[in-house]
């Protein structure tokens, strides 16, 4: 059964909090879709986040995607990862 996008979003939040060492609860139902609203996101933070995502989901991101806009949008990121996981099956 394909993994539901909400589960993926929760895992992304967990990676986000862990990778950036944030004192946030990743299970908080009100975790914002705009990740930049709860953390500074410079290029180093994006790399730390991407490293965590690649490890968590066992996939690689195209270097051309390494922009803050894409990796700070929880909904877009969840959808993209769900699609990649589906394609991988």
């Amino acid at each position, binding site marked *: 059964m394909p993994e539901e996008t909400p589960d993926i979003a929760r895992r992304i939040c967990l990676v986000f909090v862990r990778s950036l*060492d944030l*004192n946030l609860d990743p299970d908080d139902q009100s975790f914002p879709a705009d990740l*930049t609203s709860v953390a*500074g996101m*410079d290029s*180093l933070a994006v790399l*730390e986040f991407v490293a*965590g995502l*690649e490890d968590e989901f066992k996939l690689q991101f195209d270097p051309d995607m390494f922009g803050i806009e894409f990796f700070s949008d929880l909904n877009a990121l969840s959808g993209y990862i769900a699609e990649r996981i589906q394609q991988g099956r």
Partner: protein
Amino acid sequence: MHCQDILPNVSSRAGDRSGYMYTPDTITGQFNKVVADNPEKTALIDGETRYTYGELASISSAYSLHLRDRLSPLPGQVVLAWMDNGPELVACFLAAARSSTILFPLNIHWREPELRWFLDRLPVAGVVTKKSLSAAWDQFTNRISHDHIITVDDPNLNDGILQGRAAGPGSEGMPTPSPEDHVVFFSSSGSTGAPKIVPRSHRNIVEGTVCKAGALGISPGHRFLGIVPFYHANGFDNSLALPLLSGATLVLQSDFVPSRFVEAMTRHRIDVFIGSPAIFELLLRFEVDRSCLSTLKICASSGGPIAADNIAAIRRRFGVIIRQVYGSTETGVIAIDPPEGGPPSVPVPNLEIKILGASGEPLPQGEKGEIAVRGPSVVSGYIGGSGDESMVFRNGYYCTGDRGCLDPSGSLELLGRIRPTINLSGTKVDPVEVENAIRTLPGVSSCRVFSVKGPRHNEVIKAVIAVREGATLDRAGIISHCRTLLSEYKIPRIIELVLSIPPDLTGKSPVSWGDRSD
């Protein structure tokens, strides 16, 4: 040509002072020596484009004429460089050196209030930037007119400069710089709430570079990867000045992206890489090819203390020994780990090191205290009273704020920091600057900002914020407010809201050089 042709009698090992020859010179003098001996050798590789030393000399000459014609900088005026690593920034630096102009490479992630602080304090002749970044200066047109903002990747300009490589020496009418003239300014974060402007002279840079080249054994045959931003002293010193004033080849990359890093390392058979703690940390976190560092002969980290665990992990995974390069924006390199790795580190020749007690008195060998240094690579003060000069420049020595001791062999053991600063894997942040920004938010009664140790030996900015009675603050509001005043990397990652600041909150940073000896 061999290293000894450029760097006569310089030992290949840090700490061996025998035979070291002091050769005062300007950057242009040193660069011209390299060009004369290596005119056809590749100096820069930027993507698919290569520039020989002869071409780089012509391009920088053309740039210097263009800067003179467009900006007419007066003595003491500064040209701001607002761009990432690329041949344009290299050429601007060499052009400034050639024309007695001061170049100030700015962190391209700074925000308007951060830039305004410098504009309020410096006589600015103009800005050199790129098309993709130039919009940042639209808000300053009342200070710097459009005519004085040069877009270096403008095709019209490039037709005349980057593509027109036969410009020749072109130094007619240019004032001849002296070794004591300032040539580059850097910003350095302290602990007072205001940045410090650090002026480097030709002599500071040439001496620091010659010492480091000797200590690391750099020769014209080496190939560097320049990925640490040149607006950081680490990137400028180790990835721009060191290769190009030594006749080596510099491969340019503007961002660290793991796959591109691996591709550049293998394609160009990079054999010298001087990175930062952040880059080595990321190399461990991404699943990059274990053989990607196999061509390295010299691997070092600078900009801040790298955790002993990460040095060990890099060695296990990639078979490479990382040597810690210890120094500061004010001093250039002070000490380098020996080839077999450290600690302790070995002081470079030509620097005098003292260990000072709490009252500034020199301590006997073996005792622990503040590391103070003097020598030709050390700056003599800050610009415009930025920073507390009397605290750090004493009796001809620069007091580093780092704690250490000298062992009987003269090696330097680094033990931690004395003054509270935050070092984010090579990028320094002034906690008082962040506190001042947060305090301007309505509802905040007081605030303390400091670093705590993260799970990967990294420093993480923490803010403890006391909220006024009746006020409502939340994380999103605080971050949104910080974003108007501070760069993204300065925004705290751990935010605690409290009713009052605990009296025992010292803010002392837990990460220290001493961690290396774990």
